[in-house]
């Protein structure tokens, strides 16, 4: 009956998680509730504004319906109700960042020390000081995270990783579970159902950030060697420490750009994985990344990409517009273009046979006693804990 998000105190505080004080928890509780209000209680107002006045006004002005999601966006951006809703949501995202950063930065000495305990002297954390963020990561701060994934408050810190980890609860109103790893848990559940008894020898996760979705794979397949790569050192430092704290020993975090995986030989991995990552690349990088993934994938292996649904001709233009909100209001500059691509065609172009492809749906796996299950209630477009999985089983040689 209450239908409220779980409390922030239900978030698992692993050994490198920032320690929230009473009011910091309460700030995230407010935002979790507020985000649910925006997407649930009043999210439908956007559609109402469109149907009752934006679309009629557009037809009156142009003598036709909008031709694409961009025309809808420009028209909606003149509607006072939609503008107000967008302003509320943008502020919520900004407040989440400030709240998370305040909590992390006031205890950064302790967090860096804790991470060092797990990281120092381990060859499972491989950083490349010569690497700079790729253009598509440096253009704007993704999700309005000041500094994005690669920013440092001082050299060698974990602030970006800790801030990213601690605020996912608020952004998704608890939808990704106690460790914000509902996506990774969903992968485990899906693959066990799909291929019972399958034991991949090597798994590659790219765009891993703090390893939310890679660590469940490492824990589920203790005999596998998991490689998690990202271009940003601060999230890798934090992610490696977090993985060790959670007991994952068979996972290596490496700073690398997936456009060039020449460090790995052909057919090296049985499973290559991205989870909500491809939309944070670029039009030139994406085909290169998919090409490299197909190259390093062994015959008989699995390529799987979790994303929000791609826009197709079958998807109504209004839905495409509302799914595009984050692209222009939450600093996701490749989101719109990426979702308009046909991922299946790109996977074929990368060298995977068309008949090896599949598309399926995957929902976050959480403890439903405490955390909300995906698919219940109104969808918070762009951050719903349910994804389309675009995959392929590479034919055996």
């Amino acid at each position, binding site marked *: 009956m*209450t*239908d*409220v*998000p*779980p*409390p922030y*105190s*239900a978030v698992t505080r692993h050994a490198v998680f920032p320690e929230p*004080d*009473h*009011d910091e928890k*309460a*700030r995230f*509780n*407010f935002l979790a*509730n*507020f985000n649910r*209000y925006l997407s649930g*209680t*009043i999210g*439908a*107002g956007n559609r*109402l504004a469109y149907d*009752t*006045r934006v679309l009629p006004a557009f037809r009156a002005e142009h003598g036709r319906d909008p031709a694409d999601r961009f025309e809808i966006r420009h028209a909606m951006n003149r509607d006072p*109700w939609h*503008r*107000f*809703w*967008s*302003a*509320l949501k*943008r*502020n*919520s995202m*900004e*407040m989440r*960042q*400030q709240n998370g*950063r*305040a909590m992390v*930065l*006031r*205890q*950064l*000495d302790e967090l860096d020390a804790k991470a060092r305990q797990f990281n120092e002297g381990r060859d499972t954390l491989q950083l490349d000081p010569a690497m700079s963020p790729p253009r598509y990561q440096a*253009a*704007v*701060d993704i999700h*309005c*995270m*000041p*500094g*994005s994934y690669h920013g440092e*408050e*001082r050299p060698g810190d974990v602030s970006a990783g800790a801030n990213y980890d601690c605020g996912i609860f608020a952004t998704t109103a608890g939808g990704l579970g106690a460790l914000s790893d509902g996506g990774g848990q969903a992968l485990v559940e899906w693959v066990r159902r799909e291929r019972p008894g399958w034991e991949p020898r090597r798994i590659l996760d790219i765009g891993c950030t703090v390893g939310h979705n890679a660590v469940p794979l490492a824990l589920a397949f203790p005999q596998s060697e998991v490689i998690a790569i990202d271009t940003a050192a601060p999230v890798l430092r934090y992610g490696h420490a977090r993985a060790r704290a959670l007991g994952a020993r068979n996972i290596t975090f490496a700073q690398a750009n997936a456009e060039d995986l020449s460090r790995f030989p052909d057919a090296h991995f049985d499973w290559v994985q991205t989870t909500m990552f491809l939309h944070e690349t670029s039009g030139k990088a994406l085909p290169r990344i998919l090409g490299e993934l197909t190259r390093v994938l062994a015959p008989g292996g699995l390529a799987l990409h979790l994303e929000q649904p791609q826009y197709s001709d079958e998807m109504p233009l209004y839905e495409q517009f509302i799914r595009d909100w984050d692209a222009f*209001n939450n*600093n996701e*500059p490749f989101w719109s273009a990426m979702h308009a691509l046909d991922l299946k065609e790109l996977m074929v172009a990368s060298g995977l046979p068309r008949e090896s492809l599949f598309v399926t749906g995957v929902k976050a796996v959480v403890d439903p006693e*405490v955390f909300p299950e995906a698919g219940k209630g109104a969808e918070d477009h762009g951050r719903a804990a349910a994804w389309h999985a675009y995959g392929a089983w590479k034919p055996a040689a």
Partner: protein
Amino acid sequence: MNDLDWIARAGAKAKGKRPAYFDDPALDRMLSILLAVAGEVSVLRERLDTVERLLDAKGTVSRADIESYEPDRAAAAERGLLAKAYIARIMRGVQQDMEAMAKAEPPVEEVSRTLRDT
């Protein structure tokens, strides 16, 4: 405490031009302030709830108890409901604007004239 100016750095601006949601930039600023204050009121209310629960349970309260307080499931649901009802109160205008879009209504002046004349 570290030597980082964590209060200033917490509020750093994210790279990327912020959309203007209102014609008057002052409105964008006012809404940011209003929402931050709204959040802090919710935080204070939750803290008061913590104090009340600790007093109910122990008859006394300390700051350490407040900081380490963790609600059980029932208490968490009650506190979630407090926040939900609070948000519904402060957002009433936006929500009623939404309802107004669903059904076109004549101005009350017009209703008044109709009632006078018929």
